[in-house]
């Protein structure tokens, strides 16, 4: 039904855009194009109506719908298969099931209040409640859609497309955490934890990093400070995060590590063999993640333009570099290059290039990808031993470590001196900071602060959320159920029949 509605909405929006073009009349949509345009602001905007309201570009809309579907594919099936192959066969279904259901749960929460909390005007930590149940995105009487801002002045997207695109980000972030507590968490506890963590960590971090008023509101040099002040905290600091190094990967990686500590190690961890039960599934998952990540990173340009192309090739290249550096590291330090290593290297490269995708040039992709393979290999071996937690599928070692590496190196390779596209002086002037004025040290410091805030915020919210769930529902299944395997004990079915 939801799909049907979304489909109808898209068809209507395209039809509407077509009609508007054909009649060559300005659309009667509210002037304020930004995602945060409040229904109340509409009349006031109409008064100053002099130029026609921008109409979405069909190419942009088509690309963003495609990207959204690609990111959905990254969770179900890609992440589910990637994780599902790495657990023991008695828990294979439980892994697939948790990813599938958490993805659905967060999508529903997103459309009820998550989007509003993350992407409407509020304070610098949280958004508001203007878009509860997505109200105001579609006026069924007039057949009008509200518009969301992109990164170009006068270029807009139907807000519902933006809602859907961002929904997939929220949902996959929550699914990433599941790998750290795999094979022993109670299903109901997982769902309860996700509701808490999504509300109090994902939504505010997304707001802090990504919420701003959009380029169209920067109409004069005078309003720059005022409009900047309405954006999220880390955005105001100038933190660069193209597609979610902080919001998605560091955020989920920390929550995973805290979870691994609080839920405790799996029975037999370190004594019994717990090898992945099907690396073929894991490889398929990693390959689908790579494919879907083009929607994630190149889609984060919000337009079908050169920056999307830059994000695309960076995502492609950095991942290939990371595959090679991870297996080279394995061959040198452990003796043999492995398929699991190649798949893990791909994910490490994808994670690290995420904040950098449209923010660095080709040199950045080479360095970030290669570094990610080696650093994350250490993350899942040397560092993992030091931490001592049973982070079952290495959510911290790959996502948090890769995310931190990527976030920091974004501050280095964003510099035009190193081939990066730099960032705008301000959104009224619009031109990028030139190489002579660009301070890598200053940007690196901003990136480090953003990493620190995400680290602490997510860690604290995760710890409180796990504890609350542990006191009420209990985080962990019984020892008997764990030994039996979650497939039969929690879901009453088995992945494989012999």
């Amino acid at each position: 039904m939801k799909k049907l509605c979304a489909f109808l909405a898209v068809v209507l929006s395209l039809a509407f855009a077509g009609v508007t073009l054909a009649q060559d009349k300005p659309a009667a949509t509210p002037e304020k194009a930004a995602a945060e345009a409040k229904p109340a602001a509409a009349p006031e905007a109409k008064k100053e109506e002099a130029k026609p309201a921008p109409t979405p570009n069909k190419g942009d809309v088509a690309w963003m719908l495609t990207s959204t579907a690609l990111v959905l594919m990254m969770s179900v099936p890609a992440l589910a298969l990637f994780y599902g192959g790495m657990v023991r066969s008695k828990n294979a279904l439980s892994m697939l099931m948790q990813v599938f259901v958490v993805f659905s749960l967060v999508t529903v929460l997103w459309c009820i209040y998550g989007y509003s909390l993350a992407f409407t005007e509020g304070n610098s930590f949280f958004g508001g409640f203007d878009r509860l149940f997505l109200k105001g995105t579609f006026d069924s009487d007039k057949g009008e859609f509200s518009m969301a801002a992109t990164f170009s002045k006068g270029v807009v997207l139907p807000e519902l497309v933006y809602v859907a695109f961002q929904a997939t980000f929220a949902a996959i972030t929550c699914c990433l955490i599941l790998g750290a507590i795999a094979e022993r968490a109670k299903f109901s506890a997982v769902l309860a934890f996700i509701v808490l963590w999504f509300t109090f960590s994902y939504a505010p971090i997304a707001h802090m990093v990504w919420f701003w008023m959009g380029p169209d509101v920067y109409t004069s040099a005078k309003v720059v400070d005022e409009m900047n002040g309405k954006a999220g905290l880390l955005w105001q600091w100038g933190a660069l995060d193209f597609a979610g190094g902080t919001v998605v990967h560091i955020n989920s990686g920390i929550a995973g590590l805290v979870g691994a500590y609080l839920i405790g190690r799996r029975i037999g961890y370190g004594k019994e063999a717990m090898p992945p039960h099907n690396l073929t599934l894991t490889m398929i998952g990693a390959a689908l993640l790579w494919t879907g990540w083009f929607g994630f990173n190149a889609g984060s340009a919000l337009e079908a333009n050169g920056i999307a192309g830059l994000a695309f090739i960076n995502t492609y290249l950095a991942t290939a570099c990371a595959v090679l550096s991870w297996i080279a590291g394995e061959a040198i330090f452990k003796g043999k290059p492995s398929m699991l290593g190649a798949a893990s290297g791909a994910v490490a490269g994808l994670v690290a290039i995420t904040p950098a995708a449209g923010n660095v040039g080709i040199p950045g992709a080479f360095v970030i990808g290669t570094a990610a393979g080696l650093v994350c290999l250490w993350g899942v071996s040397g560092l993992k031993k030091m931490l001592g937690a049973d982070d079952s599928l290495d959510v911290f070692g790959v996502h948090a470590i890769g995310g931190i590496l990527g976030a920091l190196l974004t501050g280095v390779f964003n510099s035009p001196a190193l081939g990066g596209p730099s960032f705008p002086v301000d959104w009224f002037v619009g031109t990028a900071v030139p190489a002579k004025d660009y301070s890598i040290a200053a940007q690196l410091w901003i990136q480090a602060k953003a990493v620190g805030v995400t680290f602490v915020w997510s860690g604290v919210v995760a710890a409180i959320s796990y504890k609350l769930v542990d006191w009420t529902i209990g985080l962990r299944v019984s020892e008997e159920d764990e030994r039996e395997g979650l497939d039969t004990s929690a879901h009453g079915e088995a992945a494989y029949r012999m």
Partner: protein
Amino acid sequence: MKLVTAIIKPFKLDEVREALSAIGVQGITVTEVKGFGRQKGHTELYRGAEYVVDFLPKVKVEAAIKSEMLEQAIEAIEKSANTGKIGDGKIFVFDLEKVIRIRTGETDAAAL
């Protein structure tokens, strides 16, 4: 009558089957098994975790034969399953008390 049980390397199964057929063995039963002997296991490395795999996959072949075929059958298996390397397996021989063909009720030699 004798029951000959041989533990062999999995990739030698086809050769063993052919050798037994060639000397007139009418049927065999094959099971995938795991075990350990003098051949050492190997280690597997998954990211940071290293596991020693003690039990290696082998194939167990069982053939019920007439006593007079025993030496021939042993020779056939020995030759066909031999690689000369450690881990080629073993042959066990048991006395077989009774054999019944379920469909016809025939017994012993007639049922083999």
